[in-house]
């Protein structure tokens, strides 16, 4: 299972005289079961890119292959693609609309035309996965806390049982504990269900702690693609395009610049504590 983008271009406003190229020659392959971080400052093209992945927008040039099939073929079932690639927008809780939590989650699978029993089973499982307690199923989604609302909204997408889950800033506006709950949920989905996750985020700290592969965008292009350890080596380049590196990576860089012989390229807090401890104890 994979998503392959070949020479993908996207231009907004063709024919209006105010054309803007949002994506330039994107060539990437996203493999089954990857946990990918997609970073880039506002306007770098990341939202456009994720909207192409489930066919919400159509590339103005190039091809996209989902599991080897060209999604722009006339015979391709776009509806099927949208149920396989789940997209969670920013502030998804603004899209809650039903009278109860369980009804809201059931809306998606119901529209897939599944039998009622299957709809209910999927919805219960999705809510359980999202850590929503059974006692909340018949409560109005608007009576929940911000973090709970967001998890219900994500459960609505999970109930579609997507193979690929794309989330645009899923932790924005949540407090640190709420952020960890959401990101922990994604990790669980990735580890237990082998769901491919694409996490769009500004926060390099979050990315460092969770993803296997990091794509960095700038002005419509992918400028860096690799493990967080590798990508964070390019601190100056990242700063130039309005991004930073996580604090632990920054400290390690500074120590190395000052001549410290620290082994490896730690990027998270626990990795850094280990590396620094070893270095301090060396004589």
């Amino acid at each position, binding site marked *: 299972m994979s998503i392959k983008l070949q020479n993908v271009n996207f231009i907004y406003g063709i024919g209006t005289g105010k054309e803007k190229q949002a994506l330039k020659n994107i060539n990437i392959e996203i493999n089954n079961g990857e946990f990918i971080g997609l970073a880039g*400052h*506002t*306007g770098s093209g990341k939202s456009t890119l994720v909207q192409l992945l489930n066919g919400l927008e159509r590339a103005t040039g190039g091809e996209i292959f989902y599991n080897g099939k060209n999604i722009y073929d006339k015979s391709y079932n776009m509806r099927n693609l949208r149920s396989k690639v789940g997209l969670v927008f920013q502030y998804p809780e603004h899209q809650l609309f039903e009278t109860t939590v369980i009804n809201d989650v059931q809306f998606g699978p119901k529209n897939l035309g599944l039998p009622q029993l299957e709809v209910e089973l999927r919805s219960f499982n999705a809510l359980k996965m999202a850590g929503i307690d059974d006692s909340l199923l018949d409560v109005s989604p608007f009576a929940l*806390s*911000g*973090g709970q609302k967001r998890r219900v909204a994500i459960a609505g997408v999970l109930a579609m049982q997507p193979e690929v889950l794309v989330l645009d800033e899923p932790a*924005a*506006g*949540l*407090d*640190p*504990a*709420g952020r960890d709950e959401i990101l922990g949920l994604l990790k669980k989905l990735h580890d237990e269900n082998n769901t491919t996750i694409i996490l769009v985020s*500004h*926060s*390099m*700290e979050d990315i460092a702690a969770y993803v296997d592969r990091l794509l960095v965008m700038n002005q419509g292009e992918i400028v860096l693609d690799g493990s967080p350890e590798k990508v964070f080596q390019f601190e100056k380049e990242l700063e130039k395009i*309005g*991004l*930073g590196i*996580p*604090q*632990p990576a*920054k*400290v390690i860089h*500074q*120590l190395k610049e*000052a001549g*410290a012989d620290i082994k490896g390229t730690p990027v998270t*807090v*626990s990795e*850094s*504590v280990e590396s*620094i*401890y070893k*270095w*301090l104890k060396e004589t």
Partner: protein
Amino acid sequence: MKPFINAKGLVHEYSRRDEEGNVTGINRALDGIDIEVKAGGFIAVLGANGSGKSTFAKHLNALLVPTEGTLYVDGMDTSEQKNNLPIRRTAGMVFQNPDNQIISNVVEEDVGFGPENMGVPTEEIWRRVEESLKSVGMYEYRKDSPNHLSGGQKQRIAIAGIMAMKPKCIVLDEPTAMLDPSGRKAVIKTVKELNKKENITIILITHYMEEVTGADYVYVMSEGQVKMKGTPRQVFARSEELAKYRLMVPEVTKIALGLSKKGINIPKDILYPEELTDILLKIKSGVL
């Protein structure tokens, strides 16, 4: 000297209502808050979602009034209706979403909207617009449409709009929650400069711990109460307690704590990457 902002036993209760409007219950969003801020101070209020920090912000310019207790802003009691306008001129508010705060299609007109409504003479308005746009570093965009600006730039325009009304105090309620890292940096830098150069009292409400390192004093709220207070260093040194209130110290502070737990003799109140690097190099070379 009297404190500029003085909250004593401040309580705010929201009533929950059913569809017919009958009261079904009471939520105590603020539960006996005591906070004092001196003129020209920079304080931060930290708290998780639902801790009551935004409710407190709304009290500071009399959008809400106390259920119990008192709140004085620049000597004015917020519970007296005649003080509403003077209080709102004293304490300007900046909210989370820049798109909800911008109303004109030209930057300079947006910034001039506030003083125009206060009846400031035209020439004085233009002078203030120029001055406040310069102080947030957005003067070169004065003729642009706010639609074409980034989130961070829009938020700085919103701050300039407040500045143009010459408030003594600015309350910012999660001003960076919707911004990218460079936008966040620019807004926080602007806020710090307003405090230092213009001597404007700043109340910054946030749950990003990295943003409060520059504050003089930090209050931590949870369940409508002030649970911790102190300088950023004093508060950040108590990371386990912060975690109880759904907050987390900056990652550099976590590294220092991790090393300390392993028996390295290192201060637990480190706030900046440069500071940690410096201390680590000193420990390694044996001078600390």
